[in-house]
């Protein structure tokens, strides 16, 4: 199981899913009605490290963060 957190304005509670790669996470999230439309705008981190590889493999207990468009300052 891995945990998926939705940050900032997405406003959705964390979920736990079974996934071995980010590609599998993608597949599952695309089916979530309230999240799928965010995905094209969101970056991804695994255990607080930004990741840009869809084949990145996950292990049990990993934390995946979904980061929508930012505007600090």
């Amino acid at each position, binding site marked *: 199981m891995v945990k998926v957190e939705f*940050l900032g304005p997405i406003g959705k509670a964390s979920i736990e899913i079974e996934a071995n790669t980010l590609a599998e996470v993608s597949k599952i999230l695309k089916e979530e009605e309230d999240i799928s439309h965010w*995905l094209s705008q969101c970056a991804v981190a695994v255990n607080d490290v930004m990741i840009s590889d869809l084949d990145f493999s996950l292990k049990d207990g990993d934390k995946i963060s979904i980061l929508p468009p930012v505007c600090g300052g």
Partner: protein
Amino acid sequence: MELYQGPLDIKEIFGRWLEEESRANYGAYIPFVGTIRAEEGIDGLSFDIYGPILAVWFERWQEIAKTKGAKVKMAHAVGDVPIHTSSYIAAVFSPKRRVALEMIDAFVEDFKANAPIWKYDLVDGKRHYATDRSTPMSGAGLLA
């Protein structure tokens, strides 16, 4: 890296940073202070921050600064910040002015684009996500 609930005490932070580095032999100290502007009927802005990734982002900048003999500092507000008060201060210290002038620009721009902070307009006590002013982070769209 400093995070505060509500508006920053800019004078306190500026003065403390000045003192912290007063013996470090830096010739240039350039802070950038961000203040909430009154516009479009907002009462202020509000911010969410994801601390762990902000810390990683900031650590990378500390390394970049170190390779140039410089130092970076930053503080940001969490939650509501009324208009005419400040939500952000970042600063570069360096021995020489060119490094500091170039780094404050790069640091502030990268902060804007890649620090995990979300901004909301505050209107009548309600938060409205600032969609139009927000930027997808590097690598956005991976899961789409």
